């Protein structure tokens, strides 16, 4: 009996939906079930009052009312049960993507590192025949890296839907984090023949958020600015302080974004025409991820672009006044 009651009541408990699945209140099966209950009672009362006026025998009124109540009850229970199943299925899907992505990444890293090791050994004792083989080894390395990037991005996209992903918020000095990230980009910029110019304010600015995620967002923008730049071009990163927010601007000297592509820039899996030429390893997910992260931190993101001259991406984040 106890197990039976638990089985019936489990799908109706509300807070687990908020906690586990991040579903808004009005979509909680328990809320919908209660709403159906109110509709049930009101319709029973309505039929009772109508019946009292037009039907002479009270037993018939009672029977009709009971019948309608039972019918509505069964429907409402079926609706909430199926909602519950959908929620569970969605959770299983999210878990599946998470597990598969993790499991696929490990062997891929093994492959890539093994190839990198072979390449580095070949460089030491290079001969004419090795050069042709190295080209193929490089191709395998680039493609395994591309798969790893895709899996990493899929993992983040999958997690962006989980509220708990944004729960690890802390108060941290945003300027310090950005400076560290810029330092890591120096090598990439240099090897891409791009000059990195930074105008970052010196005083600490505190932000309440996930340090890791905001780093990902910033790095995605800078990586694109370097990757889509012209050879010998510049990337200017500036951080300016405003009374309630910090404004980050990343300007490149690339080709700019064609007019017809601008509205799709933040869409999942969208890759612009120059992406296939300049960033063949891209996944089409980085700007989508970046926008999600910034907006979930109550910030805004936008861009200005001129074809042939370049693009500037901007984002703002609310700051904590000390």
């Amino acid at each position: 009996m106890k197990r039976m009651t638990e089985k019936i009541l489990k799908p109706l408990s509300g807070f687990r939906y908020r906690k586990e699945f991040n579903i808004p209140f009005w979509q909680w099966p328990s809320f919908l079930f209660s709403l159906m209950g109110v509709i049930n009672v009101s319709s029973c009362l309505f039929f009772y009052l109508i019946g009292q006026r037009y039907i002479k025998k009270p037993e018939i009124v009672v029977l009709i009312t009971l019948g309608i109540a039972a019918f509505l009850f069964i429907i409402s229970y079926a609706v909430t049960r199926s909602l519950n199943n959908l929620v569970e299925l969605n959770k299983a899907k999210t878990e599946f993507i998470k597990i598969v992505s993790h499991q696929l990444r490990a062997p891929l890293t093994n492959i890539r590192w093994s190839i990198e090791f072979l390449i580095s050994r070949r460089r030491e004792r290079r001969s004419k025949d090795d050069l042709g083989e190295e080209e193929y080894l490089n191709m395998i390395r680039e493609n395994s890296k591309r798969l790893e990037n895709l899996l990493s991005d899929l993992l983040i996209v999958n997690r962006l839907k989980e509220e708990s992903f944004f729960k690890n918020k802390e108060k941290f000095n945003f300027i310090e984090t950005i400076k560290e990230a810029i330092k890591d980009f120096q090598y990439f910029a240099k090897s891409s023949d791009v000059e990195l110019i930074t105008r970052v304010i010196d005083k600490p600015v505190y932000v309440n958020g996930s340090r890791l995620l905001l780093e990902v967002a910033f790095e995605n923008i800078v990586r694109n600015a370097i990757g889509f730049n012209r050879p010998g071009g510049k990337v200017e990163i500036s951080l300016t302080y405003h009374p309630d927010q910090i404004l980050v601007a990343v300007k490149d000297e690339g080709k700019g974004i064609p007019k017809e592509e601008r509205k799709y820039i933040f869409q999942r899996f969208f890759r612009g025409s120059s992406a296939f030429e300049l960033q063949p390893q891209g996944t089409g997910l980085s700007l989508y991820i970046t926008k999600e992260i910034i907006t979930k931190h109550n910030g805004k993101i936008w861009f200005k672009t001129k074809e042939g001259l370049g693009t500037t991406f901007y984002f703002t984040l609310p700051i904590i006044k000390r």
Partner: protein
Amino acid sequence: MAKILFIEDELALQKSLGELLSSQKFEVVSAIDGETGVKMSLEENPDLILLDLILPKLHGLQVLERIKSDPRTNKIPVIILTNLEGAKDVEKALELGATTYLVKANYDLDELVQRINKAIIEG
């Protein structure tokens, strides 16, 4: 010559990174599971430990906890080298005393060697 203890259950990674580090004049000793890793951290007295998290017998975070709570090994810098990148894992590892946390998929072997060199110099 600096000695590195590499605690990693993936033999392919152990071999590729291990051999590259050896060619860079490091002495590399390897452990294939968590328990052996803890034991070798005491016996080998390494200058640096590279530690994976998903390990047989003892999870990497437990290995880290044991290394950092033992006065004989708690001064050894530990670099976490894993493919797990959940914020909770990162936080927990740094809280337990890891020097840095690196996600394998985000690094090339050359970059890794640079990071390892830096950690050894900074001690």
